[in-house]
């Protein structure tokens, strides 16, 4: 089956991201296709490239990147939810006159319309919310 995930919980603040990742790795291990993970609401913090968790905790940011590298899963981030929370890629940082950026590929800022498209284009869209 073709799957997509919607992640709405902030990493380390709630279980949502951890559970979504476990579900994601199990999906692909069972031979399903995970087309995309869409980050919305506080879930957009998963895309913060500067995340530096303690070494004895799961590194969620790196885990999302691995998912993309190994299985081609797209990592889409709602741009409206991201910008107001300080998550900007290089282009948006420049546009808003910021000295640094906090989001970089493979995470990609995109519109909510992509979430709606995803919902229509996959067999299952599963929400992980706190």
């Amino acid at each position, binding site marked *: 089956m073709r799957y997509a995930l919607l992640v709405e919980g902030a990493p380390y603040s709630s279980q949502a991201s951890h559970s979504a990742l476990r579900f994601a790795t199990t999906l692909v291990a069972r031979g399903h296709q995970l087309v995309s993970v869409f980050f*919305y609401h506080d879930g957009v913090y998963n895309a913060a490239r500067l995340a530096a968790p303690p070494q004895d905790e799961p590194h969620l940011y790196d885990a999302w990147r691995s998912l993309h590298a190994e299985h081609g899963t797209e990592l889409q981030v709602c741009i409206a939810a991201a910008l107001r929370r300080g998550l900007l890629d290089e282009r948006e940082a420049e546009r808003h006159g910021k000295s640094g950026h906090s989001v970089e590929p493979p995470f990609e800022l995109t519109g909510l319309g992509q979430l709606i498209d995803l919902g229509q284009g996959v067999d299952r869209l599963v929400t992980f919310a706190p």
Partner: protein
Amino acid sequence: MAISSPSTGDLLVILRHPPHGSSWLREGLDAALVAAAFGQSVSLLFQGDGVLALAKGQQTGPLGQKGTAATLDMLSMYDIDSLHVEETALERFGLEAKQLQLPARIADGDSISHLLAGHRLVLTF
């Protein structure tokens, strides 16, 4: 008043949070509006604390947040008129249908099951 609220459609958005104190409701409504703008038929289910979103007379308050009452008034412009409100939650908050900002169909457990089954996609906020 007869309320036309079909229990089927493309997308069901479940709103579980009250209008103030977090951005859950606002970001959930945003998703509904975008889907409607993309031509999808959208239903809303106000569930749990989310029923408070429909209480009349919501203000924006002193915190600089936009509030959601104005967004709710825009729903009809987006052809989102399939609104459902959880019966037990209304009772818990002592709210009656006439106290709601918009006409919504009162949904018991069976109706909620039908809503979940009748939409191709469900998003929960």
